[in-house]
């Protein structure tokens, strides 16, 4: 802070500095310190590359849905309820995976033909029973779950006027219910309960087939 003369704490006008001599005080403290930028500088190149990578993925996804066929398919899928749509997509994923496993089993040259056929039938039976169980349990839980949704909305009445928040939590509840039911059936019920049943069915089918021969 540069001042030509020290200004005294004196109300006598003769002792006060003339205005021309009083230099404007300049505070240089802030300019010498650079304000911290948002985000780390170290990870900025990585973040930029990630942004570019996701930009190209977005272009590809945009082209996938920006055509006549996709728009018509999405219009038809949009008529399905949100919770049911997610359930159908999860079942589709598990169908593709089971089909992949069955194909690999049938192409496995380490096993003899009869063993391959038995395993393939077992895997198909597990898929069928799991899918039926998943839809059945989901359907049974839906009615009771709607009462839980009402209780949740009543307990969180503070955002009753916020439509976006309500939709967000309702969709979250529906998707959580579907994911938990499907995960429980495919990851726990299928290996523990359904597989022995499917094995028994597969063995009976094999026995009948060999008896006929």
């Amino acid at each position, binding site marked *: 802070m540069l001042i030509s003369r020290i200004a005294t704490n004196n109300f006598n006008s003769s002792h006060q500095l003339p205005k021309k001599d009083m230099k404007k005080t300049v505070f240089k403290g802030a300019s010498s310190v650079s304000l911290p930028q948002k985000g780390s500088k170290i990870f900025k190149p990585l973040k930029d590359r*990630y942004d570019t*990578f*996701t*930009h190209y*993925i*977005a*272009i590809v*996804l*945009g082209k*996938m*849905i*920006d*055509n006549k066929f*996709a*728009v018509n398919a*999405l*219009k038809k*899928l*949009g008529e399905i309820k*949100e919770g049911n*749509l*997610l359930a159908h*997509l*999860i079942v*589709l*994923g598990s169908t*593709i*995976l089971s089909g*992949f*496993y069955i194909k690999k089993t049938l192409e496995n040259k380490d096993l003899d033909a009869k063993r391959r056929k038995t395993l393939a039938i077992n895997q198909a039976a597990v898929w069928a029973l799991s899918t039926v169980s998943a839809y059945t349990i989901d359907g049974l839980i839906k009615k009771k779950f709607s009462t*839980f949704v009402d*209780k*949740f909305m009543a*307990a*969180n009445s503070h955002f009753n006027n916020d439509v976006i928040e309500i939709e*967000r*939590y309702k*969709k*979250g*509840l529906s*998707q*959580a219910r579907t*994911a*938990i039911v*499907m*995960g*429980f059936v*495919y*990851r*726990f019920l299928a*290996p*523990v309960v359904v597989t022995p049943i499917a094995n028994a069915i597969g063995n009976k089918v094999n026995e009948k087939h060999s008896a006929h021969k």
Partner: protein
Amino acid sequence: MINSLFKDSHITRKSRFSKSHLLQSGAPLNNYKSAATDRTMNSSDIIVKKPAEISFSGLSCANKLDKLCTNKWFKNMLIEANENPVLFGAGVALVLTCVFRPLSIILFPGSNKNSDDKKYAAAHSIASGVIGFGLAFVLVAPINAAIDKIKNKTSDYIKKNTDLFLKDKKKLLNTSETCLKQIPDIVFAPPKAILTIAILAPILKNVFGLTKKKKANSESAIPNYSMLNFKSTSLPQRNSMQSFMGGAR
């Protein structure tokens, strides 16, 4: 509520109400009907109501349910289920494969497998759950970021049918978001399975110290040297030595 505290308050007489009777019973006066208006009623019309049931909501499970509904972690979980359904599903699978399935394998009494096989199956379940969650995490993040870019700047990525996707409160865009977010589960399921099988064996060996024992073949490659044990006094071996006619002919 006040009525229920009075004696005989569960018994209501429809007719012949007088104002003084109402005042004595503590009933609200706006329920008063004069006998002139209710001449068709008989004195035998007595309505017996059940006494009010007292309920302590503090001790019932309704309070616990309210606590769950207002819990911060539960709400965050619902937001995660809405925004990342694949990752949420992988998290549910992780809990099931790492906790419940190994417990059921080890504790299930009906299984004929020995303890080593049970350990192997439990470790297999844990490893597949961890690998599945890890792969989902790696695949989901860039796809979700790309979908967010499409949602924020739709016109940059959807050029032909922008109006269709943006109308009706972005219904078509929301449906496409639900479908596109399932791509890691649908499209990448077979490669994920191949990768899981490939990585599983080294993980089980190096992390859990478990290797699948190979079943012994009926035709073993190890030769049986018992017939060369000259000190044995058991008859079959002596007989085999006695019948040994020499090597090459």
